[in-house]
């Protein structure tokens, strides 16, 4: 009897622990938001947010460790589900969320000192920050595609509130455009999601679970191809809007450049991934039904257009944060193209690229936040000689910039190299060549701005620094997050850690056949 009980407990132990991990990870930002609301003090809100974000990071890392060994985790029956693909998206949410909560203390503190923001608003900022993290966490752990849609729509609403924190004209305009365009876009996505559900139900799935991704993928061979075609186009247009894929990207440069800088880092580095993730989940189902070609070619098309539009906009850009925002359009385009190329290295490269971009872009936003505080402008023509006025920030900004344009030996070079070689290797010459050409333009444009800002000399002749500016970096709390990110940019440029390799390899399998073959218990539609 006791033996049986222990055997049962053993069998149940691992899943129970991991589902408890999953639930407590979701609760961390809730606790943070509650603590901020109760305390109503700036200092307490900062501490509570940093504490809840670090708790979230620890739990997320433990959870990802569990996913590496168990391949999939579910909780509340099949409502929550986390596999290797979800884990790859979860990692930047937790990591950048944590780093951004540290940088917030310095950045928002500075805004507070300069009276750009009052006591009431700073509390609202930290409430919104925690809830924003919560809504993003829901995306990779939702098995139910309806719940995922609700979570993505919720991210829009919370981030609009965070942009509205400022009463500036430009912030209000950006918030309005973002709200309307993203909401209309997501209504397309909901249309598509319902179509997928309908196709699954008509294929004989149980209506109770027909909205679950696992169910759709298992059934994907049986779905009506005509419905799936329309459904995928709707989803691609809808979630593509939210992911900043051109030509639906028009709201993105406004929203990402007008948000408070720590939020810009989250929007660019993390939220875009969540939307791409949604598209790719449907791409896997669609590939199961129609074969990979249909959705891959659409992804490639949108991806190439995105990189192209970003290239033109970056070359002629005048505003530092807008340039970074367009660079996000570029990198999401690259991810879409990479998935379009497909194959092991296409998928592997895409996932690595998601993570690399999620490290390099927040670094750039943080540095640009400190720089625009110092120079009191975002206009790149006014910013000269950062390396002299802020030596540490300047150096970090340079590292981030070199990484963003894909220079070796930094991390983004690795993923871009993998992606392009998989493109040429699989015979996709035209899109690969186009992307490569656009990347050259982006390199030229970005470096032109970057070099002038970092090394250029100020307009006043004979002076090493602009008038009235001391040679001083921002406080430790601004520099430490950037140093951590820059360290990762360099390390990941030299080697990809074993766990990450394993995760990305598993995801490549999921793209191939719906689930990792190691545990064939439930099995996907085997390819």
């Amino acid at each position, binding site marked *: 009897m006791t033996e049986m009980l222990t055997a049962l407990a053993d069998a149940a132990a691992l899943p129970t622990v991991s589902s408890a991990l999953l639930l407590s990870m979701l609760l961390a930002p809730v606790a943070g938001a509650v603590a901020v609301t109760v305390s109503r003090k700036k200092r307490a809100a900062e501490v509570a947010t940093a504490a809840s974000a670090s708790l979230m990071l620890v739990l997320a890392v433990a959870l990802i460790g569990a996913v590496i060994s168990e391949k999939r985790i579910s909780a509340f029956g099949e409502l929550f589900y986390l596999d290797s693909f979800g884990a790859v998206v979860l990692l930047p949410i937790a990591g950048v969320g944590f780093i951004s909560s540290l940088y917030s203390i310095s950045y928002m503190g500075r805004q507070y000192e300069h009276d750009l923001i009052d006591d009431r608003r700073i509390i609202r900022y930290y409430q919104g920050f925690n809830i924003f993290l919560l809504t993003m966490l829901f995306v990779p752990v939702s098995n139910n595609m309806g719940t995922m849609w609700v979570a993505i729509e919720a991210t829009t*609403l919370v981030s609009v509130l965070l942009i509205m924190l400022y009463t500036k004209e430009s912030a209000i305009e950006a918030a309005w455009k973002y709200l309307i365009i993203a909401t209309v876009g997501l209504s397309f996505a909901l249309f598509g999601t319902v179509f997928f559900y309908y196709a699954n139900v008509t294929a004989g799935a149980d209506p109770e679970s027909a909205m679950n991704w696992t169910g759709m993928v298992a059934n994907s061979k049986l779905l009506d191809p005509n419905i799936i075609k329309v459904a995928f186009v709707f989803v691609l247009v809808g979630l593509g809007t939210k992911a900043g894929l051109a030509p639906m990207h028009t709201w993105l440069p406004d929203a990402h450049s007008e948000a408070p800088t720590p939020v810009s880092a989250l929007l660019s580095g993390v939220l875009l991934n969540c939307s791409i993730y949604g598209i790719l989940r449907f791409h896997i189902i669609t590939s199961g039904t129609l074969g990979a070609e249909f959705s891959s070619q659409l992804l490639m098309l949108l991806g190439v257009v995105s990189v192209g539009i970003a290239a033109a906009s970056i070359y002629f850009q005048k505003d530092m944060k807008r340039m970074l925002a367009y660079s996000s359009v570029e990198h999401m385009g690259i991810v879409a193209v990479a998935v379009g190329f497909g194959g092991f290295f296409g998928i592997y490269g895409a996932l690595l690229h998601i993570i690399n971009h999620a490290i390099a872009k927040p670094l750039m936003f943080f540095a640009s936040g400190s720089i625009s505080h110092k120079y009191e402008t975002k206009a790149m023509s006014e910013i000269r000689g950062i390396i002299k006025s802020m030596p540490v920030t300047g150096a970090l900004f340079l590292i981030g910039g070199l990484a963003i344009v894909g220079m070796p030996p930094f991390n983004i070079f690795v993923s871009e190299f993998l992606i392009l070689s998989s493109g040429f290797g699989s015979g996709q010459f035209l899109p690969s060549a186009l992307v490569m050409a656009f990347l050259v333009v982006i390199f030229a444009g970005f470096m032109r701005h970057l070099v002038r800002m970092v090394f250029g000399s100020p307009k006043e002749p004979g002076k090493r620094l602009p008038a009235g500016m001391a040679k001083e970096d921002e406080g430790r709390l601004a520099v430490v997050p950037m140093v951590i990110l820059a360290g990762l940019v360099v390390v990941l440029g030299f080697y990809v850690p074993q766990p990450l390799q394993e995760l990305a390899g598993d995801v490549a399998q999921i793209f191939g056949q719906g689930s990792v073959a190691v545990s064939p218990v439930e099995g996907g539609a085997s390819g």
Partner: protein
Amino acid sequence: MTGLEILPADILTISSAGLLIATFGVVVRRGFADWLSAYRYQTIVLAGVTAVIAYYTGVWEIYVAAALTLVIKAVVIPRVLVRVTRKIKDEFKIEANPYVGLRLSVLISALLVALSYALTQQMLSSSSLDVVAMTCLPVSVSLFFIGLFVIVSRRMALNQVVGLLIIENGLFLFTTALTHGVSLVIEIGIFADILVGVVISAILLFRISQTFDTLDIGSLEKLRDD
């Protein structure tokens, strides 16, 4: 059941027409109060249609969805919008000079309805659809298209919110008619999103009217790349 089968179908047809009429009410009017009452009328009819679908299919969750529609969308949302926009000047609530004139708008909307019927016939003819889906799907797609059209063809920010609400009604009808209700948890999530979205857009509307002294979105053009 057999004796009643014809009756609900007729009700569905008639009330679907009611939905379309209400939508055209938004297209032909210039004032915010008129749009809001057209929207309210549309939503009440929608709740009725939903209840008929619930009766027809015997799924109790759809009754709940119908009740939620009535309470949240026909009562709460219009009230919230009226309350928040009370302080906004009346001149900002009138669509004096839309991008597309009203007469042309009616024509385009009519074409959109025709397009919706054509599209749904073509796409879903292969699969077996019941009476509910046959009647309601084209109407729901029409609402979606007309809502989109209202958003892109009007200058007043308030009108864009009304356009979004119409789109959302279309989506709701589409979902209910095609799937006979996805799970209630998701419906409630969607309702919560809409409610919060409307509240946020209302706050934003107020801020825009304060900061820019207009609600003409054509004059929001601070953010440019040059």
